């Protein structure tokens, strides 16, 4: 045990907790037994942007298997494609093992450096949400360590309530130990990508709507230039893809997979490196670089799915103030709100290095899962910008008034009321959570800020 300062990927709101790295259940139980009033939370690779995997003054169990000399604890059934995997294993490790054997993860977020445990707890989504749904929909069983010390196996058929409370449950129902995940068969390790430049926001929404052929592609996402104004406001570069067939690939080894890290981010970065002017210049280049008309290319998995993973610790590019990632969703018919949000940010001079728009498919059975049918916009913003709390609170209300919500794995600032409004099944989930953890053992800084672990279950004198 050691006191350790922790933050999420955004490097804001640091707090100190007792950090224990372990993959061993008996050690986890020991930490649980010795934990004080401020409880315990599991942490994987710390890729959630806000405070979901930190626990101020309490215990944090870091459950990762990076660099495990015994290889990864994952068994892939080559006939069914079912992967039986420890929660500590990252999607990166899985892909290194599975791609050469012809299997891909069913869902990957923008980084492959997330653990299976984190992917389930955040119910992560990827560029294929409109096609395949989110990660939890491909999980057929979860082995969970409860607060009582009991280990249970949850499946969507046998105990749907507990299973779906754990999917998207932000680690507040127990510690995910193992899972069975259905993998996707692939013929090659390449992606056939269609890239298209779209001159304004109307063109973007048109191309991505369901009758705009978006449903014909498994993967679809659009990068948006938030700083473009006037007639080119909301212009973007749309990329859509499919796993390439063996015939598409010229290479001899069609399943070759080599995700080597390319450049490290410098260890020290001047604050304000990413500012309105540098981002504007980047956006112009990025937009112009994309072909004017539809263009087909064959890309590798890291190129297409995980471009930012190419820069090690890219989160440091924001300097020591850190950054937040703002991701929300609004119903399909509320493009007006997307536009209003983009205008609000752009007129406040808030630049975003990465702004990404995606059309999401229907919601799954989890009460706390983020995706619902609608548009999700994601942007990252330097945390130290003057007036940001006021601006975000205004935008939060625009989103909530439109029937939208915020993604908890990204969240760093929303209010308890905002979660209540955005997640109408919050009480139902809290009720299930309380049944699974009657004494309120599991708690995180996110849970504390948002009141996700109800007050009557507060332990001791916290």
């Amino acid at each position, binding site marked *: 045990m050691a006191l350790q300062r922790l933050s999420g990927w955004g490097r804001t*709101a640091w707090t100190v907790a007792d950090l224990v790295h372990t993959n061993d259940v008996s050690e986890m139980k020991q930490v649980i037994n010795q934990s004080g009033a401020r409880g315990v939370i599991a942490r994987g690779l710390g890729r959630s942007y806000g405070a979901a995997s930190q626990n101020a*003054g309490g215990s944090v169990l870091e459950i990762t298997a990076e660099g495990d000399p015994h290889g990864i604890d994952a068994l892939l059934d080559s006939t069914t494609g079912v992967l039986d995997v420890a929660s500590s294993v990252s999607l990166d490790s899985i892909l290194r093992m599975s791609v050469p054997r012809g299997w891909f993860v069913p869902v990957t977020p923008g980084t492959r450096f997330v653990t299976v445990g984190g992917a389930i707890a955040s119910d992560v989504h990827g560029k294929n949400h409109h096609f395949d749904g989110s990660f939890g929909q491909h999980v057929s069983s979860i082995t969970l360590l409860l607060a009582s010390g009991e280990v249970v196996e949850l499946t969507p058929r046998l105990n749907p309530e507990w299973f779906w409370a754990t999917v998207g449950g932000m680690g507040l129902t127990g510690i995910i130990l193992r899972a069975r995940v259905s993998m996707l068969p692939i013929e090659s390790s390449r992606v056939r990508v269609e890239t298209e430049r779209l001159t304004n926001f109307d063109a973007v929404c048109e191309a991505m709507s369901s009758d705009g052929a978006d449903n014909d592609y498994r993967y679809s996402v659009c990068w948006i230039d938030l700083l473009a104004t006037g007639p080119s406001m909301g212009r973007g570069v749309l990329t859509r893809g499919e796993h390439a067939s063996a015939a598409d690939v010229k290479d001899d080894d069609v399943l070759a997979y080599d995700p080597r890290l390319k450049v490290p981010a410098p260890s020290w970065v001047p604050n304000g490196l990413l500012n309105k002017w540098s981002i504007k210049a980047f956006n112009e280049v990025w937009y112009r670089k994309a072909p004017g008309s539809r263009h087909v290319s064959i890309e590798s998995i890291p190129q297409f799915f995980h471009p930012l993973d190419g820069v090690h610790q890219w989160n440091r590019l924001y300097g020591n103030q850190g950054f937040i990632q703002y991701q929300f969703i609004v119903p399909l018919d509320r493009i007006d709100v997307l536009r209003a949000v983009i205008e609000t940010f752009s007129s406040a001079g808030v630049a975003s290095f990465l702004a990404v728009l995606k059309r999401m498919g229907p919601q799954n059975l989890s009460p706390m899962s983020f995706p619902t049918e609608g548009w999700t916009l994601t942007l990252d913003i330097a945390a130290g910008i003057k007036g940001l709390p006021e601006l975000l609170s205004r935008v939060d209300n625009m989103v909530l008034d439109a029937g939208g919500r915020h993604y908890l794995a990204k969240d760093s600032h929303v209010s308890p009321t905002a979660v209540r409004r955005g997640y109408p099944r919050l009480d139902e989930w809290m009720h299930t959570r309380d049944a699974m953890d009657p004494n309120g053992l599991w708690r995180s800084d996110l849970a504390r800020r948002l009141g996700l672990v109800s007050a009557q279950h507060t332990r001791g*004198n916290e």
Partner: protein
Amino acid sequence: MKNGVGVAQNIVLFGGTSDIGQAILRRIIKPGVARVALVSRNLEAAASFASELEEAFPDVEIHHVRYDAADASSMAHVVTEIVSEIGDIDVAVVAQGVLNEGMDYYSDPTGLITLCDVNFTSTMVLLYALSQQMKQQGYGKTVLLSSVAGERVRKGNPAYGATKAGIDGFALALDHELVGTGASILVVRPGFVTTKMTTGMKKAPFSTDAESVAKITEAGIASGKKVVWAPGLLRWMFLILKNVPLPVWRKLPL
């Protein structure tokens, strides 16, 4: 819990009637703040500030806690009471203090006892109690209103200056002890501030107002500094003033 854009959910002001304390709160209460506790001896005197806050920030719960800033032995209890009312303390602004200038301490030293109790003894006990709570929380920021008067104690207000010198030095050392716990202390050193505390006094050079002190304090909290001066120029002034030889110091018109 503090959030990712630097907003504290729960804020406590010790010395609920302090002009500087109130000015700091006006600046740091933003969307995201849920609860504010005003701790003061005279709840009626703090009531007008409370209603001002209620009007300006309808989403924020305002709590009142009564205490006697001179009663050092009650400080730990006061902190416990606040925590039971609002939960974790994200930011505590310690603005309790008395000036008691112009009193004839030669013939009646009782005022000195109050002065030391409020400015020094109680504040020291309070900083320990807050730090203990924040260590358990794994985070938390205490803002101590010190004064340049403590930088080099001068004739005119030797007693006040000595209490500030003492508490300032103590707070910096305590902050050093807290490294690695998540709890930390920001020492704010204002110069002459035109407030009700200094009403009727002759303005000193580089005087400032509560609003400017608050602005500098807010920036100090955000950047994680250990000490801020208000105005900032005083830092360089005192670098010189602290080091001028005593005979020269005594001739200065301060």
